[in-house]
């Protein structure tokens, strides 16, 4: 039996753009409850004007990420019990992104950088060519596979201190995507991938401290992907200098 009388002390960010403040709500505690359940309870039972974002509720869509007690998390798969601090929760919009309203961060910069890092498909064959066979155990494919489960949740981007200090920095997810493309047998122009991550906001700005890898809810490893890009671009630097 759950203890129906128990209440959680939940402070939630309210505001638009740069302005706002935390507002506290009392939310009934349940035995099994995710942070997203708590936010939904507030919106449904306490204040219908609370703005937040979610879709799948099962860790697939990447739309529900927020700061929970100062840490970026996917809220639909984060159990309250695991993150509660002295019976209290603080929930805010994702770090390193502009706020639209309340808990909904503006994801545009994140996706714009995804495109700037070359994360769009550039086909190397036309529909008239035969389909390219890619053996699953090909080393490039194995390396590329490590990054393809990214759900674009921006948790790594919110965790990255280099993004915080350098707003032009492409960030871990976009760079990991570039590394996936670099290793993809179907991508012909590898140098173009390296060029798009070698400019002023590129992979060379990463400090390699690994907050991205530590906080990625899908246990991906952008840190190692970025290290791969640095090695590949250094090699191409010498090749070009010849």
């Amino acid at each position: 039996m759950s203890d129906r009388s128990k209440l959680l002390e939940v402070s939630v960010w309210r505001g638009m753009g740069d302005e706002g403040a935390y507002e506290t709500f009392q939310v009934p505690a349940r035995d099994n409850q995710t942070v997203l359940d708590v936010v939904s309870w507030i919106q449904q039972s306490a204040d219908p004007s609370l703005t937040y974002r979610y879709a799948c509720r099962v860790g697939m869509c990447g739309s529900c990420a927020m700061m929970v007690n100062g840490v970026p998390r996917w809220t639909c798969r984060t159990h309250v019990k695991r993150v509660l601090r002295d019976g209290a929760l603080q929930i805010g919009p994702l770090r390193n992104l502009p706020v639209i309203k309340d808990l909904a961060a503006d994801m545009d910069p994140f996706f714009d950088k995804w495109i700037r890092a070359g994360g769009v498909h550039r086909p190397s064959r036309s529909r008239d060519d035969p389909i390219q066979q890619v053996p699953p155990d090909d080393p490039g494919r194995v390396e590329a596979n490590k990054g393809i489960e990214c759900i674009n949740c921006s948790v790594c981007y919110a965790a990255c201190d280099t993004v915080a200090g350098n707003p032009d920095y492409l960030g871990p997810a976009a760079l990991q995507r570039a590394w996936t493309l670099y290793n993809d047998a179907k991508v012909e122009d590898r140098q173009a991938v390296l060029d798009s991550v070698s400019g002023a906001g590129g992979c060379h700005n990463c400090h390699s401290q690994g907050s991205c890898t530590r906080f990625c809810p899908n246990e991906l490893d952008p840190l190692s992907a970025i290290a791969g890009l640095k090695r590949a671009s250094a090699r191409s630097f010498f090749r070009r200098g010849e």
Partner: protein
Amino acid sequence: MLNIGLYMAQRLSAMVMAPLVLGHIAVMIYAVQGGLSTAEILDRTQGSVWWFLFYGSFVLAVAAHAAIGLRVILHEMTGLRGRWLEVVTCGIGMLLLIMGGRAVLAVTFA
């Protein structure tokens, strides 16, 4: 605020500095152990092309390495960017180059 060029300059200058630092420490230990006087040290360094190249390349590497490192810190901590960031990066590099260059010339120029 690092592109591939600055990144490589910083890594390569570090690779140049590493053996030179070890060489410098070895020389210091030798000079102290052997009880060399200032005059005896200057006697060996002045007019020596080798010591000029040794400490000259050290100064070049330090100027590049430190200027790029400070550039990153300044950009991320103060938000300095654009033209001023370039000016400050070059300024730090030049300052280190001039100060180091003067010191090298003072001990190697006969």
